Protein backbone atom coordinates (compact mmCIF):
# COMPACT_ATOMS: atom_id res chain seq x y z
CA UNK A 1 0.00 0.00 0.00
CA UNK A 2 2.76 2.49 0.94
CA UNK A 3 4.68 1.54 -2.18
CA UNK A 4 2.40 3.11 -4.74
CA UNK A 5 1.68 6.08 -2.49
CA UNK A 6 5.40 6.83 -2.32
CA UNK A 7 5.66 6.76 -6.10
CA UNK A 8 2.54 8.92 -6.39
CA UNK A 9 3.98 11.39 -3.87
CA UNK A 10 7.33 11.41 -5.68
CA UNK A 11 5.60 12.07 -9.02
CA UNK A 12 3.57 14.96 -7.55
CA UNK A 13 6.67 16.38 -5.85
CA UNK A 14 8.58 16.13 -9.12
CA UNK A 15 6.29 18.55 -10.95
CA UNK A 16 5.58 20.69 -7.90
CA UNK A 17 9.29 21.39 -7.38
CA UNK A 18 9.41 22.93 -10.86
CA UNK A 19 5.92 24.44 -10.60
CA UNK A 20 6.89 27.60 -12.43
CA UNK A 21 7.41 25.54 -15.56
CA UNK A 22 4.75 22.86 -14.98
CA UNK A 23 1.89 24.92 -13.55
CA UNK A 24 2.45 28.68 -13.96
CA UNK A 25 3.61 28.49 -17.60
CA UNK A 26 0.59 26.53 -18.93
CA UNK A 27 -1.77 28.82 -17.01
CA UNK A 28 -0.17 31.85 -18.66
CA UNK A 29 -0.43 30.23 -22.11
CA UNK A 30 -4.14 29.56 -21.65
CA UNK A 31 -4.77 33.10 -20.44
CA UNK A 32 -2.98 34.50 -23.51
CA UNK A 33 -5.21 32.37 -25.78
CA UNK A 34 -8.24 33.75 -23.97
CA UNK A 35 -7.14 37.38 -24.15
CA UNK A 36 -6.27 37.25 -27.85
CA UNK A 37 -9.04 35.03 -29.25
CA UNK A 38 -11.56 36.55 -26.86
CA UNK A 39 -10.65 40.07 -27.89
CA UNK A 40 -10.67 39.34 -31.61
CA UNK A 41 -13.80 37.18 -31.77
CA UNK A 42 -15.99 38.37 -28.89
CA UNK A 43 -18.18 40.58 -31.13
CA UNK A 44 -18.20 38.25 -34.12
CA UNK A 45 -18.94 34.77 -32.83
CA UNK A 46 -21.82 33.59 -30.77
CA UNK A 47 -21.87 29.83 -30.35
CA UNK A 48 -24.74 29.37 -27.91
CA UNK A 49 -27.52 31.94 -27.55
CA UNK A 50 -26.81 34.34 -24.72
CA UNK A 51 -23.25 33.07 -24.18
CA UNK A 52 -20.42 35.45 -25.14
CA UNK A 53 -17.45 33.99 -27.03
CA UNK A 54 -15.03 34.61 -24.17
CA UNK A 55 -17.33 32.76 -21.75
CA UNK A 56 -17.68 29.95 -24.29
CA UNK A 57 -13.93 29.73 -24.69
CA UNK A 58 -13.08 29.45 -20.97
CA UNK A 59 -14.19 25.83 -20.39
CA UNK A 60 -12.48 24.71 -23.61
CA UNK A 61 -9.20 26.27 -22.56
CA UNK A 62 -9.50 24.85 -19.05
CA UNK A 63 -10.08 21.36 -20.45
CA UNK A 64 -7.30 21.72 -23.02
CA UNK A 65 -4.90 22.64 -20.19
CA UNK A 66 -6.09 19.70 -18.10
CA UNK A 67 -5.54 17.26 -20.96
CA UNK A 68 -2.18 18.55 -22.17
CA UNK A 69 -0.70 18.74 -18.69
CA UNK A 70 -1.95 15.34 -17.63
CA UNK A 71 -0.30 13.91 -20.74
CA UNK A 72 2.90 15.87 -20.19
CA UNK A 73 3.30 14.73 -16.60
CA UNK A 74 3.47 10.96 -16.98
CA UNK A 75 5.15 11.01 -20.38
CA UNK A 76 7.93 13.44 -19.49
CA UNK A 77 8.61 11.81 -16.13
CA UNK A 78 8.98 8.37 -17.70
CA UNK A 79 11.16 9.46 -20.60
CA UNK A 80 13.42 11.48 -18.30
CA UNK A 81 13.84 8.51 -15.97
CA UNK A 82 14.53 6.24 -18.93
CA UNK A 83 17.08 8.54 -20.52
CA UNK A 84 18.91 9.44 -17.30
CA UNK A 85 18.78 5.78 -16.25
CA UNK A 86 17.28 6.39 -12.81
CA UNK A 87 14.24 4.28 -13.71
CA UNK A 88 16.38 1.40 -12.47
CA UNK A 89 15.58 2.47 -8.88
CA UNK A 90 11.94 1.77 -9.60
CA UNK A 91 12.48 -1.37 -11.65
CA UNK A 92 14.25 -3.13 -8.76
CA UNK A 93 11.38 -2.50 -6.33
CA UNK A 94 8.51 -4.90 -5.60
CA UNK A 95 5.96 -2.39 -7.00
CA UNK A 96 3.38 -4.10 -9.21
CA UNK A 97 2.24 -2.87 -12.62
CA UNK A 98 -0.99 -1.69 -10.96
CA UNK A 99 1.02 0.37 -8.48
CA UNK A 100 2.98 2.00 -11.33
CA UNK A 101 -0.24 2.76 -13.17
CA UNK A 102 -2.03 4.19 -10.13
CA UNK A 103 0.93 6.38 -9.19
CA UNK A 104 1.78 7.76 -12.65
CA UNK A 105 -1.83 8.29 -13.73
CA UNK A 106 -2.78 9.63 -10.28
CA UNK A 107 -0.01 12.24 -10.36
CA UNK A 108 -0.98 13.19 -13.94
CA UNK A 109 -4.55 13.67 -12.77
CA UNK A 110 -3.35 15.95 -9.98
CA UNK A 111 -1.18 18.01 -12.34
CA UNK A 112 -4.01 18.28 -14.90
CA UNK A 113 -6.52 19.37 -12.29
CA UNK A 114 -4.11 21.83 -10.62
CA UNK A 115 -3.33 23.52 -13.94
CA UNK A 116 -7.02 23.42 -14.96
CA UNK A 117 -8.02 25.05 -11.67
CA UNK A 118 -5.32 27.67 -12.15
CA UNK A 119 -6.57 28.52 -15.65
CA UNK A 120 -10.13 28.60 -14.38
CA UNK A 121 -9.36 30.92 -11.46
CA UNK A 122 -7.48 33.41 -13.61
CA UNK A 123 -10.00 33.40 -16.44
CA UNK A 124 -12.98 33.55 -14.05
CA UNK A 125 -11.86 37.05 -13.36
CA UNK A 126 -12.01 37.90 -17.10
CA UNK A 127 -15.28 36.08 -17.85
CA UNK A 128 -17.48 35.29 -14.83
CA UNK A 129 -18.47 31.62 -15.10
CA UNK A 130 -21.85 29.84 -14.89
CA UNK A 131 -22.26 26.43 -13.33
CA UNK A 132 -25.36 24.96 -14.93
CA UNK A 133 -24.63 21.25 -14.18
CA UNK A 134 -21.40 21.26 -12.13
CA UNK A 135 -21.15 17.48 -11.67
CA UNK A 136 -20.34 17.08 -15.39
CA UNK A 137 -17.43 19.46 -14.91
CA UNK A 138 -15.86 17.22 -12.27
CA UNK A 139 -16.62 13.94 -14.04
CA UNK A 140 -15.20 14.96 -17.42
CA UNK A 141 -12.18 16.75 -15.95
CA UNK A 142 -11.25 13.66 -13.92
CA UNK A 143 -11.89 11.16 -16.75
CA UNK A 144 -10.10 13.33 -19.31
CA UNK A 145 -7.07 13.82 -17.08
CA UNK A 146 -7.00 10.11 -16.25
CA UNK A 147 -7.18 9.12 -19.91
CA UNK A 148 -4.44 11.54 -20.97
CA UNK A 149 -2.28 10.49 -18.02
CA UNK A 150 -2.70 6.93 -19.26
CA UNK A 151 -1.84 7.93 -22.84
CA UNK A 152 1.21 9.76 -21.48
CA UNK A 153 2.25 6.57 -19.75
CA UNK A 154 2.04 4.63 -23.02
CA UNK A 155 3.90 7.36 -24.92
CA UNK A 156 6.57 7.52 -22.21
CA UNK A 157 7.07 3.75 -22.39
CA UNK A 158 7.19 3.79 -26.18
CA UNK A 159 9.49 6.76 -26.75
CA UNK A 160 13.24 6.23 -26.57
CA UNK A 161 14.18 9.82 -27.32
CA UNK A 162 12.74 13.21 -26.47
CA UNK A 163 11.97 13.97 -30.13
CA UNK A 164 9.85 10.82 -30.43
CA UNK A 165 7.83 12.00 -27.47
CA UNK A 166 7.56 15.47 -28.99
CA UNK A 167 6.28 13.86 -32.21
CA UNK A 168 3.61 11.96 -30.26
CA UNK A 169 2.60 15.21 -28.59
CA UNK A 170 2.65 17.39 -31.71
CA UNK A 171 1.13 14.93 -34.20
CA UNK A 172 -1.40 13.13 -32.02
CA UNK A 173 -2.25 14.96 -28.82
CA UNK A 174 -2.20 18.57 -30.14
CA UNK A 175 -4.35 17.95 -33.25
CA UNK A 176 -6.83 15.81 -31.32
CA UNK A 177 -7.18 18.57 -28.72
CA UNK A 178 -7.39 21.48 -31.15
CA UNK A 179 -9.85 19.68 -33.44
CA UNK A 180 -12.10 18.71 -30.57
CA UNK A 181 -13.98 21.99 -30.34
CA UNK A 182 -11.92 23.94 -27.83
CA UNK A 183 -12.29 27.14 -29.87
CA UNK A 184 -15.61 26.49 -31.60
CA UNK A 185 -18.76 24.39 -31.61
CA UNK A 186 -18.49 21.55 -34.10
CA UNK A 187 -21.92 22.62 -35.38
CA UNK A 188 -20.21 25.56 -37.03
CA UNK A 189 -18.11 23.17 -39.15
CA UNK A 190 -18.97 21.81 -42.63
CA UNK A 191 -20.73 18.41 -42.53
CA UNK A 192 -17.69 16.25 -43.28
CA UNK A 193 -15.67 17.79 -40.47
CA UNK A 194 -18.57 17.40 -38.08
CA UNK A 195 -18.52 13.68 -38.82
CA UNK A 196 -14.74 13.54 -38.39
CA UNK A 197 -14.98 15.42 -35.10
CA UNK A 198 -17.43 12.84 -33.81
CA UNK A 199 -14.76 10.17 -34.22
CA UNK A 200 -12.43 12.05 -31.87
CA UNK A 201 -12.89 11.02 -28.23
CA UNK A 202 -11.44 14.37 -27.15
CA UNK A 203 -14.50 16.06 -28.65
CA UNK A 204 -16.75 14.26 -26.15
CA UNK A 205 -14.52 15.23 -23.23
CA UNK A 206 -14.70 18.91 -24.06
CA UNK A 207 -18.36 18.84 -25.04
CA UNK A 208 -19.35 17.07 -21.83
CA UNK A 209 -17.13 19.36 -19.76
CA UNK A 210 -18.68 22.47 -21.33
CA UNK A 211 -22.14 21.06 -20.65
CA UNK A 212 -21.42 21.48 -16.95
CA UNK A 213 -21.00 25.22 -17.42
CA UNK A 214 -23.76 26.11 -19.87
CA UNK A 215 -26.30 23.29 -19.64
CA UNK A 216 -26.16 22.98 -23.45
CA UNK A 217 -23.93 20.75 -25.55
CA UNK A 218 -23.49 19.44 -29.10
CA UNK A 219 -24.34 15.87 -28.03
CA UNK A 220 -26.01 14.40 -24.96
CA UNK A 221 -23.63 14.34 -21.97
CA UNK A 222 -24.60 10.70 -21.42
CA UNK A 223 -23.28 9.78 -24.85
CA UNK A 224 -20.12 11.75 -24.07
CA UNK A 225 -19.77 9.95 -20.76
CA UNK A 226 -20.11 6.57 -22.46
CA UNK A 227 -17.54 7.41 -25.16
CA UNK A 228 -15.04 8.93 -22.73
CA UNK A 229 -15.58 6.15 -20.19
CA UNK A 230 -15.03 3.39 -22.74
CA UNK A 231 -11.97 5.19 -24.19
CA UNK A 232 -10.50 5.54 -20.69
CA UNK A 233 -11.01 1.85 -19.97
CA UNK A 234 -9.39 0.81 -23.29
CA UNK A 235 -6.38 3.11 -22.93
CA UNK A 236 -5.91 2.07 -19.28
CA UNK A 237 -6.12 -1.61 -20.16
CA UNK A 238 -3.41 -1.15 -22.80
CA UNK A 239 -1.19 0.81 -20.38
CA UNK A 240 -1.64 -1.81 -17.64
CA UNK A 241 -0.85 -4.64 -20.05
CA UNK A 242 2.32 -2.94 -21.30
CA UNK A 243 3.48 -2.36 -17.72
CA UNK A 244 2.69 -5.95 -16.78
CA UNK A 245 4.87 -7.39 -19.56
CA UNK A 246 7.58 -4.78 -18.91
CA UNK A 247 7.34 -3.51 -22.49
CA UNK A 248 10.52 -1.52 -23.30
CA UNK A 249 11.32 -1.60 -19.58
CA UNK A 250 12.74 -5.07 -18.96
CA UNK A 251 14.75 -6.35 -21.95
Amino acid sequence: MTGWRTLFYKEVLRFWKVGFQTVAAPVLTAVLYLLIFGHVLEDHVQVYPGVGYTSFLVPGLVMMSVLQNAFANSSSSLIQSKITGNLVFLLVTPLSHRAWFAAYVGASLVRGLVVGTGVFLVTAWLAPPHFAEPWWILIFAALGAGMLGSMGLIAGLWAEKFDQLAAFQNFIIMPMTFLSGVFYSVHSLPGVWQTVSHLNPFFYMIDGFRRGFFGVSDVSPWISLAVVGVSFVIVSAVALRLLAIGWKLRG
Partner: protein
Amino acid sequence: MFQTPSPTPPAVRFERVAKTYSGARGTLRALDGVSFDIAQGEFFGLLGPNGAGKTTLISILAGLTLATEGRVTVMGHDVLADYAAARRALGIVPQELVFDPFFSVRETLVIQSGYFGVKNNGAWIDELLASLGLEDQAGANMRQLSGGMKRRVLVAQALVHRPPVIVLDEPTAGVDVELRQTLWQFVSRLNRDGHTVLLTTHYLEEAEALCSRIAMLKAGRVVALDRTANLLAGTASTMLRFKTDDPLPPAMAAQARITGRSVQLTARDAAEVEALLGRLRGAGVRIEELEIGRADLEDVFLEIMQAAA
Protein backbone atom coordinates in the same frame (compact mmCIF):
# COMPACT_ATOMS: atom_id res chain seq x y z
CA MET B 1 -0.12 -32.89 8.73
CA PHE B 2 3.50 -32.79 9.79
CA GLN B 3 5.76 -31.20 7.26
CA THR B 4 9.50 -31.49 7.28
CA PRO B 5 11.01 -28.02 7.37
CA SER B 6 12.48 -27.06 4.03
CA PRO B 7 16.27 -26.78 4.08
CA THR B 8 17.66 -23.25 4.02
CA PRO B 9 17.39 -22.03 0.43
CA PRO B 10 20.52 -20.69 -1.24
CA ALA B 11 20.78 -16.88 -1.21
CA VAL B 12 20.92 -16.97 -5.01
CA ARG B 13 20.40 -19.87 -7.41
CA PHE B 14 21.03 -19.71 -11.14
CA GLU B 15 19.62 -22.72 -13.02
CA ARG B 16 20.66 -23.17 -16.65
CA VAL B 17 20.27 -19.43 -17.31
CA ALA B 18 20.55 -18.46 -20.96
CA LYS B 19 20.08 -15.13 -22.68
CA THR B 20 20.00 -14.60 -26.41
CA TYR B 21 19.82 -11.16 -27.99
CA SER B 22 18.47 -11.00 -31.52
CA GLY B 23 19.52 -8.02 -33.56
CA ALA B 24 19.99 -6.85 -37.11
CA ARG B 25 23.46 -8.42 -37.14
CA GLY B 26 22.30 -11.84 -36.05
CA THR B 27 21.86 -13.36 -32.62
CA LEU B 28 24.16 -13.06 -29.65
CA ARG B 29 24.24 -15.72 -26.96
CA ALA B 30 25.19 -13.53 -23.97
CA LEU B 31 24.64 -16.32 -21.43
CA ASP B 32 24.84 -19.98 -22.32
CA GLY B 33 23.48 -22.21 -19.55
CA VAL B 34 24.85 -20.67 -16.38
CA SER B 35 24.17 -22.68 -13.20
CA PHE B 36 25.51 -22.11 -9.69
CA ASP B 37 24.35 -21.41 -6.15
CA ILE B 38 25.48 -18.76 -3.70
CA ALA B 39 24.96 -19.88 -0.10
CA GLN B 40 23.54 -17.54 2.52
CA GLY B 41 26.27 -15.51 4.20
CA GLU B 42 28.82 -15.98 1.42
CA PHE B 43 31.00 -13.22 -0.02
CA PHE B 44 30.94 -14.33 -3.63
CA GLY B 45 32.93 -12.97 -6.55
CA LEU B 46 31.80 -13.01 -10.17
CA LEU B 47 34.73 -12.37 -12.48
CA GLY B 48 35.21 -12.30 -16.19
CA PRO B 49 36.47 -10.13 -19.01
CA ASN B 50 34.28 -7.43 -20.57
CA GLY B 51 31.42 -8.98 -22.49
CA ALA B 52 31.56 -12.25 -20.53
CA GLY B 53 27.93 -11.79 -19.42
CA LYS B 54 28.42 -10.63 -15.81
CA THR B 55 26.11 -7.63 -16.04
CA THR B 56 23.52 -9.58 -18.04
CA LEU B 57 23.45 -12.23 -15.29
CA ILE B 58 23.10 -9.55 -12.58
CA SER B 59 20.34 -7.84 -14.58
CA ILE B 60 18.40 -11.11 -14.82
CA LEU B 61 18.82 -11.57 -11.07
CA ALA B 62 17.46 -8.06 -10.44
CA GLY B 63 14.53 -8.47 -12.85
CA LEU B 64 15.88 -5.78 -15.19
CA THR B 65 16.32 -8.29 -17.99
CA LEU B 66 14.30 -11.42 -18.74
CA ALA B 67 16.20 -14.66 -19.24
CA THR B 68 15.56 -16.52 -22.50
CA GLU B 69 15.81 -19.84 -20.64
CA GLY B 70 16.37 -21.05 -17.12
CA ARG B 71 15.35 -19.93 -13.69
CA VAL B 72 16.76 -17.65 -10.99
CA THR B 73 15.77 -17.51 -7.31
CA VAL B 74 16.69 -15.14 -4.49
CA MET B 75 16.32 -16.64 -0.98
CA GLY B 76 14.12 -19.29 -2.59
CA HIS B 77 11.85 -16.79 -4.38
CA ASP B 78 11.60 -17.01 -8.17
CA VAL B 79 12.55 -13.64 -9.68
CA LEU B 80 9.57 -13.82 -12.07
CA ALA B 81 6.78 -15.78 -10.41
CA ASP B 82 7.45 -14.32 -6.96
CA TYR B 83 9.13 -11.08 -8.02
CA ALA B 84 7.99 -8.96 -5.08
CA ALA B 85 9.54 -11.26 -2.46
CA ALA B 86 12.67 -11.79 -4.58
CA ARG B 87 13.20 -8.03 -5.02
CA ARG B 88 12.62 -7.36 -1.31
CA ALA B 89 15.45 -9.80 -0.57
CA LEU B 90 17.82 -8.11 -3.02
CA GLY B 91 19.74 -4.83 -2.86
CA ILE B 92 21.50 -3.96 -6.08
CA VAL B 93 24.14 -1.29 -6.63
CA PRO B 94 24.06 -0.56 -10.34
CA GLN B 95 27.20 -0.09 -12.35
CA GLU B 96 26.09 3.18 -13.96
CA LEU B 97 26.26 6.35 -11.89
CA VAL B 98 22.57 7.25 -12.09
CA PHE B 99 20.51 9.60 -9.92
CA ASP B 100 17.27 11.58 -9.84
CA PRO B 101 18.19 15.27 -10.12
CA PHE B 102 14.95 16.44 -8.50
CA PHE B 103 15.80 15.28 -4.98
CA SER B 104 18.25 15.63 -2.10
CA VAL B 105 20.22 12.69 -0.72
CA ARG B 106 17.86 12.18 2.20
CA GLU B 107 14.75 12.55 0.00
CA THR B 108 16.21 9.98 -2.38
CA LEU B 109 16.66 7.50 0.46
CA VAL B 110 13.24 8.15 2.02
CA ILE B 111 11.56 7.67 -1.37
CA GLN B 112 13.50 4.47 -2.07
CA SER B 113 12.43 3.11 1.36
CA GLY B 114 8.83 3.92 0.53
CA TYR B 115 8.95 1.92 -2.71
CA PHE B 116 9.74 -1.13 -0.58
CA GLY B 117 6.94 -0.30 1.84
CA VAL B 118 9.39 0.65 4.61
CA LYS B 119 8.01 3.47 6.75
CA ASN B 120 9.78 5.55 9.42
CA ASN B 121 13.20 4.48 8.20
CA GLY B 122 15.01 7.56 9.59
CA ALA B 123 17.26 5.72 12.06
CA TRP B 124 18.54 3.24 9.45
CA ILE B 125 18.98 6.02 6.88
CA ASP B 126 21.06 7.98 9.44
CA GLU B 127 23.17 4.89 10.03
CA LEU B 128 23.70 4.38 6.31
CA LEU B 129 24.65 8.04 5.84
CA ALA B 130 27.12 7.81 8.74
CA SER B 131 28.66 4.49 7.62
CA LEU B 132 29.19 5.80 4.10
CA GLY B 133 30.47 9.23 5.17
CA LEU B 134 27.49 11.08 3.73
CA GLU B 135 26.19 12.95 6.81
CA ASP B 136 27.31 16.35 5.54
CA GLN B 137 25.64 15.75 2.16
CA ALA B 138 22.24 14.60 3.47
CA GLY B 139 20.50 17.85 2.53
CA ALA B 140 22.39 18.42 -0.72
CA ASN B 141 20.72 17.93 -4.08
CA MET B 142 21.99 14.90 -5.99
CA ARG B 143 23.24 17.16 -8.80
CA GLN B 144 25.67 18.90 -6.44
CA LEU B 145 27.51 15.72 -5.44
CA SER B 146 30.83 14.52 -6.84
CA GLY B 147 30.98 11.18 -8.64
CA GLY B 148 32.33 9.41 -5.56
CA MET B 149 29.57 10.82 -3.36
CA LYS B 150 26.93 9.77 -5.90
CA ARG B 151 28.39 6.27 -5.80
CA ARG B 152 28.00 6.22 -2.00
CA VAL B 153 24.35 7.25 -2.37
CA LEU B 154 23.83 4.36 -4.81
CA VAL B 155 25.13 1.98 -2.16
CA ALA B 156 22.88 3.51 0.52
CA GLN B 157 19.90 3.34 -1.87
CA ALA B 158 20.47 -0.38 -2.43
CA LEU B 159 20.44 -1.00 1.33
CA VAL B 160 17.47 1.09 2.53
CA HIS B 161 15.24 -1.98 2.85
CA ARG B 162 17.93 -4.06 4.65
CA PRO B 163 18.09 -6.77 1.98
CA PRO B 164 19.71 -10.08 3.00
CA VAL B 165 21.42 -10.31 -0.42
CA ILE B 166 23.54 -7.43 -1.69
CA VAL B 167 24.79 -7.20 -5.28
CA LEU B 168 27.62 -4.85 -6.17
CA ASP B 169 28.21 -4.52 -9.91
CA GLU B 170 31.70 -3.08 -10.46
CA PRO B 171 31.29 -0.76 -7.46
CA THR B 172 34.86 0.54 -7.40
CA ALA B 173 35.29 1.35 -11.08
CA GLY B 174 36.75 4.85 -11.18
CA VAL B 175 36.48 5.36 -7.45
CA ASP B 176 39.14 6.95 -5.22
CA VAL B 177 41.10 5.02 -2.60
CA GLU B 178 39.27 6.54 0.36
CA LEU B 179 35.85 5.51 -0.93
CA ARG B 180 37.12 2.04 -1.78
CA GLN B 181 38.25 1.57 1.80
CA THR B 182 35.03 3.00 3.28
CA LEU B 183 33.00 0.81 0.98
CA TRP B 184 34.89 -2.41 1.67
CA GLN B 185 34.88 -1.86 5.42
CA PHE B 186 31.15 -1.30 5.34
CA VAL B 187 30.36 -4.21 3.03
CA SER B 188 32.60 -6.55 5.04
CA ARG B 189 30.73 -5.55 8.19
CA LEU B 190 27.41 -6.29 6.50
CA ASN B 191 28.78 -9.68 5.44
CA ARG B 192 29.91 -10.44 9.01
CA ASP B 193 26.39 -9.51 10.14
CA GLY B 194 25.05 -12.28 7.90
CA HIS B 195 24.35 -10.52 4.58
CA THR B 196 25.22 -12.41 1.43
CA VAL B 197 27.35 -10.35 -0.95
CA LEU B 198 27.73 -10.87 -4.68
CA LEU B 199 30.49 -8.78 -6.19
CA THR B 200 31.54 -8.29 -9.78
CA THR B 201 34.83 -6.51 -10.24
CA HIS B 202 37.73 -5.93 -12.55
CA TYR B 203 40.10 -5.50 -9.62
CA LEU B 204 41.26 -9.04 -8.98
CA GLU B 205 43.12 -8.14 -5.79
CA GLU B 206 39.79 -6.99 -4.35
CA ALA B 207 38.12 -10.26 -5.21
CA GLU B 208 41.07 -12.17 -3.78
CA ALA B 209 40.99 -10.21 -0.54
CA LEU B 210 37.22 -10.25 -0.04
CA CYS B 211 35.56 -13.20 -1.72
CA SER B 212 35.49 -16.67 -0.19
CA ARG B 213 34.28 -18.21 -3.44
CA ILE B 214 34.58 -17.16 -7.04
CA ALA B 215 32.92 -17.94 -10.34
CA MET B 216 34.65 -16.98 -13.56
CA LEU B 217 32.58 -16.32 -16.66
CA LYS B 218 33.79 -16.35 -20.19
CA ALA B 219 31.62 -15.88 -23.28
CA GLY B 220 28.47 -16.59 -21.27
CA ARG B 221 29.72 -19.79 -19.61
CA VAL B 222 31.09 -20.57 -16.16
CA VAL B 223 34.73 -21.62 -16.74
CA ALA B 224 35.75 -21.85 -13.07
CA LEU B 225 33.82 -22.09 -9.83
CA ASP B 226 35.59 -22.79 -6.57
CA ARG B 227 36.74 -21.44 -3.22
CA THR B 228 39.24 -18.66 -3.76
CA ALA B 229 41.87 -20.62 -1.80
CA ASN B 230 41.38 -23.71 -4.01
CA LEU B 231 41.61 -21.65 -7.18
CA LEU B 232 44.90 -20.24 -5.97
CA ALA B 233 46.19 -23.65 -4.84
CA GLY B 234 44.89 -25.66 -7.78
CA THR B 235 46.89 -23.82 -10.35
CA ALA B 236 50.56 -22.93 -10.53
CA SER B 237 50.93 -21.22 -7.20
CA THR B 238 54.43 -19.78 -7.38
CA MET B 239 55.32 -16.74 -9.39
CA LEU B 240 58.78 -16.01 -10.76
CA ARG B 241 59.49 -12.45 -11.94
CA PHE B 242 62.67 -11.00 -13.41
CA LYS B 243 64.02 -8.55 -15.96
CA THR B 244 66.09 -9.43 -18.98
CA ASP B 245 67.27 -8.09 -22.32
CA ASP B 246 67.79 -11.54 -23.82
CA PRO B 247 65.16 -13.52 -25.77
CA LEU B 248 63.52 -16.40 -23.88
CA PRO B 249 63.45 -19.93 -25.31
CA PRO B 250 60.25 -20.07 -27.45
CA ALA B 251 58.51 -22.73 -25.33
CA MET B 252 59.00 -20.60 -22.23
CA ALA B 253 58.03 -17.33 -23.92
CA ALA B 254 54.63 -18.82 -24.81
CA GLN B 255 53.81 -19.33 -21.13
CA ALA B 256 55.23 -16.04 -19.84
CA ARG B 257 53.57 -12.69 -19.20
CA ILE B 258 55.98 -10.24 -20.74
CA THR B 259 55.72 -6.49 -20.17
CA GLY B 260 58.70 -4.73 -21.76
CA ARG B 261 61.82 -6.07 -20.00
CA SER B 262 59.76 -7.62 -17.23
CA VAL B 263 58.97 -11.34 -17.47
CA GLN B 264 56.64 -13.34 -15.24
CA LEU B 265 56.43 -17.13 -15.13
CA THR B 266 54.39 -19.42 -12.92
CA ALA B 267 55.50 -22.66 -11.30
CA ARG B 268 53.79 -25.32 -9.21
CA ASP B 269 56.52 -25.65 -6.58
CA ALA B 270 60.12 -24.89 -5.65
CA ALA B 271 61.47 -27.78 -7.77
CA GLU B 272 59.82 -26.33 -10.87
CA VAL B 273 61.29 -22.89 -10.02
CA GLU B 274 64.73 -24.47 -9.98
CA ALA B 275 64.08 -26.25 -13.25
CA LEU B 276 62.93 -22.99 -14.88
CA LEU B 277 66.04 -21.16 -13.68
CA GLY B 278 68.20 -24.02 -14.99
CA ARG B 279 66.59 -23.79 -18.42
CA LEU B 280 67.12 -20.03 -18.48
CA ARG B 281 70.80 -20.45 -17.55
CA GLY B 282 71.15 -23.15 -20.18
CA ALA B 283 69.68 -20.86 -22.84
CA GLY B 284 72.12 -18.13 -21.84
CA VAL B 285 69.44 -15.72 -20.60
CA ARG B 286 70.97 -13.22 -18.16
CA ILE B 287 68.42 -12.22 -15.55
CA GLU B 288 68.26 -9.26 -13.17
CA GLU B 289 66.05 -8.32 -10.20
CA LEU B 290 64.77 -11.84 -9.64
CA GLU B 291 61.69 -12.12 -7.40
CA ILE B 292 59.90 -15.27 -6.31
CA GLY B 293 56.42 -14.92 -4.80
CA ARG B 294 52.99 -16.42 -4.47
CA ALA B 295 50.82 -16.36 -7.58
CA ASP B 296 47.80 -14.08 -7.23
CA LEU B 297 44.29 -14.29 -8.59
CA GLU B 298 45.33 -12.39 -11.67
CA ASP B 299 47.63 -15.26 -12.66
CA VAL B 300 44.87 -17.78 -12.00
CA PHE B 301 42.44 -15.66 -13.98
CA LEU B 302 44.74 -15.41 -16.99
CA GLU B 303 45.51 -19.11 -16.87
CA ILE B 304 41.84 -20.06 -16.76
CA MET B 305 40.85 -17.59 -19.48
CA GLN B 306 43.62 -18.92 -21.75
CA ALA B 307 42.64 -22.51 -21.05
CA ALA B 308 39.01 -21.72 -21.89
CA ALA B 309 39.94 -20.03 -25.18
